[in-house]
């Protein structure tokens, strides 16, 4: 049967619905696909991280190649002295490569915030503006699934900017190092680097989404993120200088991440002398606050408010 003004016949669906579909992955994939369609912003945002990654990769490769000549010169040495010298040289090489990767990570962090802000600030704000959430919540989807889908989307872009470069450079280092020594000797550093990158991406992902959920304009969310980020950074550093108290620096997100970085990799940065636990508490509280905002705002979206 067909209606009078159209020619197509309605077909029934005789398949079955899956019991446990990965709805958050589907939602994330549709968000990622939209991101890939905007090619110019993608090019502009990723070109610098890509250059950093390639340059660091080359530097790591060169670092190992440059020392390979020294190994040939050791051929005439006593075997025990040769082993000791080779070990010391390798250790120094690996240490230098680590520093290169640390620099890459540090240099990349603000680009990651920019990229995640760009791709994430519209994820909930645009849904609210267009009322697209009505299409999602009218389906068998919970708020948690919705939030997870959005978080996966923004984390994908963040990972592309920081987790992927770290992985690429660590892979180059592993392949270029003699006998995979970077992988076998410094596997704990690789794991910590990846953990730190994922932590950075997760925290900023949830923060971006929380800000995005508070408005219905993408630009406002992006502005809000940068105001929060840079105002607390500049404000806390200024207060620390004025009041001569390092505790003020705890108010800044990047300072807390720097403290975690220092703790993970046994580094020390000037002006950051507080306990690691304090930074974990601050970031934990911010994560909790962001999650609470997201929970409240997505509930409002769910009921169509």
């Amino acid at each position: 049967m067909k209606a009078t003004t159209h020619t197509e016949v309605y077909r029934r669906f005789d398949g079955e619905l899956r019991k446990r579909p990965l709805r958050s992955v589907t939602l994330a994939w549709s968000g990622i696909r939209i991101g890939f369609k905007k090619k110019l912003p993608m090019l502009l945002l990723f070109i610098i991280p890509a250059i950093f990654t390639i340059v660091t990769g080359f530097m790591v490769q060169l670092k190992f190649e440059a020392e390979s000549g020294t190994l040939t010169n050791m051929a005439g040495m006593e075997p025990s002295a040769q082993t000791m010298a080779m070990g010391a040289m390798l250790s120094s090489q690996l240490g230098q490569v680590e520093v290169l990767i640390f620099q890459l990570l540090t240099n990349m962090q603000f680009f990651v915030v920019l990229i995640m802000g760009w791709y994430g600030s519209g994820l909930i704000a645009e849904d609210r503006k267009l009322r697209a959430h009505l299409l999602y919540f009218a389906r068998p989807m919970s708020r948690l699934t919705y939030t997870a889908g959005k978080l996966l989307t923004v984390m994908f872009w963040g990972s592309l900017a920081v987790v992927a470069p770290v992985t690429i450079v660590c892979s180059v280092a592993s392949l270029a190092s003699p006998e995979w020594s970077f992988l076998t000797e410094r596997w704990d550093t690789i794991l910590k680097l990846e953990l730190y990158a994922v932590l950075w991406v997760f925290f900023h992902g949830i923060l971006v989404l929380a800000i995005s959920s508070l408005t219905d304009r993408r630009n406002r969310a992006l502005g809000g993120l940068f105001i929060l980020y840079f105002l607390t950074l500049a404000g806390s550093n200024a207060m620390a200088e004025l009041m001569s108290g390092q505790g003020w620096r705890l108010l800044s997100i990047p300072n807390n991440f720097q403290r975690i970085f220092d703790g993970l990799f046994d580094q020390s940065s000037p002006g950051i002398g507080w306990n690691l636990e304090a930074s974990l508490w601050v970031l934990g509280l911010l994560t909790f606050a962001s999650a609470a905002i997201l929970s409240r705002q997505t509930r409002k979206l769910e009921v169509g408010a």
Partner: protein
Amino acid sequence: MTSTLPDPLPGHASDADSPDRGEPIVRLQGLRKSFGSVHALRGLDMELPPGPVGLLGPNGAGKTTLIGLLLGLLEPTEGTAVVAGLQPTNRAARIEIRKRVGYMPESDCLLPGMTAVEIVSSLAKLTGLNRQDAITRAHEVLDYVELDEARYRALDGYSTGMKQRLKLAQALVHDPDFLLLDEPTNGLDPAGRRHMLSLVEDLGRNQNKNILLCSHLLPDVERTCDNVVVLVKGQAILQGSIAELTAAESRRLRVEVEDGAGRLQAALEAATYATSLNEDGALMVTLPHGVEDADALCGFAAGEGVNISSIDPVRSTLEEVFLKAVDDSEKKAEATGA
């Protein structure tokens, strides 16, 4: 309290062969929903029969709240709502309801940058279809709503009519038996409106879909629905079959005369008949109490020497029924001080 009732959704895929379409698709009992001091729904008691049902009401009547409750997005303050045999009291029941309901929102709600195929197939996957089924089904429903090559274009260049049809397609993609259509003809030109109404009519009348059509446009409801519910200030003030509600009233008559309509009108008014003269020259007459049929009119016409060509009972339009119901409700509210 049990969350599920034994009777499944009539016409659902699992009981597609069931001939029984007599079970109500929605049962509301004493349904109340308040947001603080604002009472959106004030004790709704109704049963929506299967088939297409129109939901009418002025702004703020509680239509959106009712949709939220039917989808299990809101929890009632009091009372129960049973949708497709399921009571949305827990998460599992709410999820199950949303598998069986297709919702077409009033607002634009489509994310730009994606194509129609991408949107519909993504939403199908979110409902639970596997990848292959989602793609196939997306094309089927896009064929049905006649989004041809445009389905491969990004939404940015779509007309309102195309967007509305796309929204209908996404509501249909999992082949639900109960469709909630919120203002489907909103913003459409006459051709687009005609097309959309023909789709809704086909779904309700030929595809046996149960439809709740929310609309401000009474002719749309009159054309596509068999039953109607009028919601005012959170209460159902009128519900029933459109045919019955708009049935001809035996006391209101349309009288066509060859000439001398003015003379006949004067004579009738002198005898306490309420009359009015239409622009087309026909005389509208309401019989006074005590006069049971139109024979008396013939006596007046004969007395005035006027020839009557026809006498027909007047059939109310849905608009008249709606306005009268709203009017009566307001008068009642004023009288009770509510």
